């Protein structure tokens, strides 16, 4: 993952209908989270992501949960079961995770308002760790 490099974007399906992509959120701080339903650490991390989304969405934070390689039905059922309210994208072809050279799941990538990679985070994070990562970016104008 190249910190400082332009963040690549792909149009993929969105749970609930239609398509979505990273590029649609240019101008906002975006936290992309690559995950899959079979991945235990991804499940453990979901509540922290949901908490972060509820806490910071009003400050301009966007969280995109991008399921890697599974069907929309599988990802949607998981999101509903776990009370996820942030957008869930379905990347059946695993384009996001392979382009960002994700070495495992979950992986989070923080993207700046101007569409560049700020940093990548491997492994499950806590709410506090997520806040520490995105807080300074949200505070900066």
């Amino acid at each position: 993952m190249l910190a400082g490099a332009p963040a690549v974007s792909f149009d993929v399906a969105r749970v609930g209908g239609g398509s979505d992509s990273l590029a649609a959120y240019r101008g906002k701080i975006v936290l992309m989270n690559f995950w899959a339903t079979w991945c235990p650490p991804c499940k453990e991390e979901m509540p922290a992501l949901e908490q972060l989304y509820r806490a910071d969405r009003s400050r301009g934070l966007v969280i995109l949960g991008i399921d890697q390689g599974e069907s929309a039905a599988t990802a949607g059922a998981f999101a509903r079961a776990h009370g996820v309210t942030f957008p869930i994208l379905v990347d059946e072809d695993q384009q996001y995770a392979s382009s960002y050279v994700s070495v495992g799941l979950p992986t989070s990538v923080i993207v700046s308002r101007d569409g560049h990679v700020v940093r990548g985070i491997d492994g499950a994070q806590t709410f506090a760790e997520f806040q520490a990562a995105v807080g300074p970016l949200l505070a900066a104008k």
Partner: protein
Amino acid sequence: MTPRATAILLALVAIGLTIAQDVWPARDWYHSWQYITLLALAIIVMTGYAWNARDGSDGVAGRRLGLAMIGAIATAVAGVLSGLIGPDTVTVVGSPGTVTPVPDLGAAAFFAGVDPASLARNDPVITLRRRGADPIDIGSQPTLDGLSVVFTQMRPAAYVVARDEHGNRLTVTQPNNPSFLSPVLLFRQQQQIRDKTFPMDTFATPAVNRIARVLYFSAADLAAFRHGLPGSRDAAGAVLSVADNAGNTRGLTIAASGLPVNVAGLQITITLGMYPVLVIASAPQPAVMIGGIVLFVLGCVWAAFARRDRARAEAAVLAPQ
């Protein structure tokens, strides 16, 4: 053979050997002692000839050929330096859609993303990008890039789509490869079967605890044991061996490119094609090499005019007043 003919012949050989590094790059032979010795020998003979001919002992043509020898020597020196101290050939393997820094070129290599259709068409390209410069698409033809020659080599690749028994798409991972979450296998390993070596790779579907080993068989290899396998007779195929997490084999099958097969509770579609790797080889300093060749040609042409110039001078002396 006269000294002049020997010098010209060795000059041509030296220039040819040096140009070869650009035309047929990435050969180990360019870094061998035999290659270096041949060029060094040519340099010594050419230098000796030019030195001896400078006082006119081989006529005006010989003196003028000195210029050609200087050019050929410069070219040969560029060839020797490239072979002697140039870096060894580097092959950069990148997963589709990724960017790999290439310090040898001071650039980043962008490996094109693929879908099954583009992989089957062998379409993917590698693009070199540098800050503030136009991107360069690299193809199979050698391209000079500073002190390097870069080109692509196509290698077998496979795009894997896996589904469970209900038809739901499954995540494909590659636990043994750097491209952990890519569905594209690049066959970085090999397996020997009897006297033949086959490209091999593995992938997993963690959701259903399956690990598959894939052997790539070319159309020719497959023809040897094609027993009613659907698909074109000219197409490559893959042998799939699927095991559970404990390593127990759960199924074995042969898959034709692009056609789904059911094995061990999975429906797997493997689309086979070729994907490029980037090859970087050392090259002779282009300005020295080209300048040397130009000097060699100019020197030879100048020397060829020596006979005519002498004939004119003699005619002028003999002409009646």
